[in-house]
């Protein structure tokens, strides 16, 4: 069952998508990932990882209501 989640874009992902955040309807992170790449083909070339509720995603996960997904290009701090 698809539910509404918030997607946040950071770094080059913000420049690529032209926005800071956006709502998506998805049942799990794999489905969300496919929608993202379909809508923004350039995202796949960054590349990017995802965080689910502030924690780096290690494997695909089912989504819950109000989940926050962040799109994270390679880190550049330090």
């Amino acid at each position: 069952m698809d539910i509404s989640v918030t997607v946040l874009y950071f770094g080059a992902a913000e420049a690529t998508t032209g926005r800071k955040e956006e709502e998506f309807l998805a049942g799990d992170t794999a489905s969300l990932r496919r929608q993202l790449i379909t809508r923004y083909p350039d995202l796949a070339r960054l590349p990017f990882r995802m965080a689910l509720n502030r924690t780096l995603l290690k494997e695909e996960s089912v989504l819950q209501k109000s989940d926050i997904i962040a799109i994270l290009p390679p880190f550049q701090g330090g």
Partner: protein
Amino acid sequence: MQYCLLSREAETHIQTMKNRYLVGGPITPILVSELMTLGNDDTGTGAVSIFIGRVRDDEAAGRRVTAIEYSAYEEMAGKEADEIVRTVKSAFSDVRSVIIVHSLGLVKAGEASLFIMVTSGHRDQGTRACRHTLEMIKERLPIWKKELF
């Protein structure tokens, strides 16, 4: 919170800190001095290892970097920095404190954007823990930069 321990003199700087790990703009020499006073009263500290990262005026395709604009996923950065401090302290039993501060926003060439301080009983674990903290920051803090020319 660690930055509440700082003196009046640094208050204007401290007020720009978004949390104990992130500060708006460069890490100024005054802020560095103030951060270095943390743990000064711990007479069991024999070694203080500090790393400061600065913005270089590198040349890229014939243009010279004049500044870097840093952005972060602030909520996650705070959580990850907490985790880095915990990991370093548990991996190095001689370490007494770990301070991490990273800049957000505009930092000009020559200015500092990262401050790490590790206090320890002795030099060996302290210097290794400081380097390890630095590597974990590069690997785990959700921070991005944009070079300005």
